[in-house]
C-alpha cells in the first residue's frame, strides 16, 4: 500500500538530488577543490629528485614543490597521497586524487584518456651503460642489446626506435639495479634522475654514454573533463614562471632552469 511506497519515493528523490550534486562536482572539479579547500595530489614518493622522502622522512622533491606552489596559488591546501605507479592511475580514475604530480610524460596515448597541464619540465633522454662496457658509445650501438625500460615511458619508444630489445621494468630504480647486476646492457632514462643517483652512489660503475637531442616534456595529469581545474593550474604555472618562482625551485633542485 501507500505506506510501502513512501520510502521508495523518498529514495528516488534522494538519488536525484545526489545525482545533481554529483554532476555539478563532476562538471566543475575546480569548484569542488575550492569548496573543500584541498587539492588531492597523487605521487609515487619513491622517485628522487622529483618526489621522495628526505632524511627527516618528509615528502619533498621538484614535482612536490611545484605542486605545492600550484596549490598555494589556487588558495587551497595540497594533500599528497603516495602509491605505486599503476595504483596512481587507478587512483586518479577512482577520484582518489584530483591531480598527479610525478614527472608524467605528455604523450598522445595518455592524452586519449587524461588531461595534462602545460609542460613544466623538459628533460633529456640519456643512454646509460656500465663503465666496463666499451662497445656502447652511442644510441646506434644498442641495436639488439637488452635495454631496461619502463613500459609506460617515452624512453621505451626511443629504445625501440633504435631496435634494442626491451626488458620491462617498474621504474628507474629497477632499471639501474638490472644494469648493475649485468642482467641488461643499457637503459635509456631521465638525465636528472641519473644525476641524482650518481650523487648518492658516486662509485656505481655506470655512466652516461650519450644524450639524445629530442627532449621529453612532462606535465601535471588530470582526469578527462577537469578543464576548469586544468585552466586554473595552467594560469598558476604561468605566473610562477613569470615571477621567477619556478626558476628558483628549478635552480634549487638542478642548478639550472629545466623548463625548456
Amino acid at each position, binding site marked *: 500500500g501507500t505506506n510501502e511506497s513512501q520510502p521508495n519515493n523518498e529514495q528516488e528523490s534522494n538519488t536525484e538530488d545526489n545525482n545533481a550534486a554529483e554532476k555539478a562536482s563532476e562538471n566543475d572539479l575546480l569548484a569542488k577543490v575550492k569548496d573543500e579547500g584541498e587539492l588531492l595530489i597523487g605521487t609515487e614518493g619513491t622517485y628522487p629528485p622529483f618526489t621522495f622522502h628526505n632524511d627527516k622522512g618528509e615528502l619533498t622533491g621538484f614535482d612536490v614543490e611545484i605542486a605545492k606552489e600550484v596549490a598555494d596559488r589556487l588558495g587551497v591546501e595540497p594533500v599528497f597521497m*603516495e602509491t605505486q605507479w599503476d595504483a596512481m592511475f587507478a587512483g586518479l580514475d577512482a577520484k*582518489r586524487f584530483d591531480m598527479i604530480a610525478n614527472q608524467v610524460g605528455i604523450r598522445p596515448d595518455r592524452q586519449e584518456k587524461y588531461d595534462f597541464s602545460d609542460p613544466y619540465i623538459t628533460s633529456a633522454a640519456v643512454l646509460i651503460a656500465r663503465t666496463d662496457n666499451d662497445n656502447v658509445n652511442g644510441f646506434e650501438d644498442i641495436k639488439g642489446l637488452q635495454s631496461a625500460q619502463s613500459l609506460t615511458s617515452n624512453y621505451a619508444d626511443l629504445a625501440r626506435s633504435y631496435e634494442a630489445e626491451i626488458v620491462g621494468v617498474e621504474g628507474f630504480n629497477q632499471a639501474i639495479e638490472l644494469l648493475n647486476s649485468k642482467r641488461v646492457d643499457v637503459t635509456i632514462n631521465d638525465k636528472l634522475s641519473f644525476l641524482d643517483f650518481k650523487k*648518492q652512489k658516486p662509485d656505481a660503475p655506470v655512466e652516461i654514454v650519450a644524450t639524445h637531442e629530442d627532449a621529453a616534456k612532462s606535465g601535471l595529469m588530470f582526469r578527462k573533463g577537469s578543464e576548469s581545474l586544468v585552466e586554473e593550474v595552467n594560469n598558476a604555472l604561468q605566473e610562477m614562471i613569470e615571477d621567477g618562482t619556478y626558476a628558483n625551485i628549478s635552480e634549487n633542485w638542478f642548478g639550472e632552469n629545466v623548463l625548456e
Partner: protein
Amino acid sequence: MKTVLMQISLKIGLVKMYLNSIFTNPERLERLTNIAESSLLPLLKGAIFYTIPLTLISFALGLTLAILTALARLSGIKPLEIIARIYVSAIRGTPLLVQLFIIFYGLPTVGITIDPFPSAVIGFSLNVGAYASEIIRAAIQSIPKGQWEAGYSIGMNYQQALKRIILPQASRVSIPPLSNTFISLVKDTSLASMILVTEMFRKAQEIAATNYEFLLLYTQAALIYWVICFILSIVQGRIERRLDRYVSK
C-alpha cells in the same frame, strides 16, 4: 663433475671477495651501517603504527567471519552453504592485490569510497575469513560426533554445544594452521602500500628510493618481519601448550 666443482669453488671465492670488500672497505661499511641505523626507527614506526595494528584488527575480524562462514558451510541450509562456498572460492581464487585494488579503486567508481586503512582492514579480513573458514570447518568436523551427542544428551542446544564443547576443542586442532594464516597475514600487509597505507614495507621502499640500497633495506624489513613472526610462533607455542594441557602427550 670437476668443472662443476671448480665453478662452485669459484663462486665461493667471489662471495668471499664481496664480503671482504665490504668489511675491508671501511667507507662502504660505514655507509651501510649508517643507513641501517638511521632507517631502523622509521621501519619500526611503520611496523608499530601500521603493520601490527592492521594485522591484529584484520585477524580478529577475519576470524569472526571465518567462524560464521564455517558454520554456514556446515549448517545444512542450502542457500547459506552456497553463499559461503562462493565467497570462499572467489577470495581464495583471486590475488589479494586485486581484491585490495577493487575495494579501494573499484568501489569509488560505483559511489562507495572508503579510506585507506579501513579498506585494507576490509580486504585482509575478507581474506582471512575465507582461508580460516576452511581450517575451522575441518577442525569442527574433526571433533567426534559423540561430543555433540554428549552435549545434547545433557540437554544442551546447538549453540550451547557449539560454544562450550565443540569450539574449545576445535580451537586446539586449528591453532597450527591458523597461525600459518596469521603469519602469512603479517607479511601480506606489505600489499597495503598499494592502497596508500604507509606500512613498514612502504617505508623501506621510500628510504631505499633515496639511497638506492634496496637490498639492504629489504633485508632489514625482512628481518623485522621475521622477528614479528618469530614472536608470534612463540606465542603460538604457548597457546598450543596451554590447550594441550588436557591431552596426554
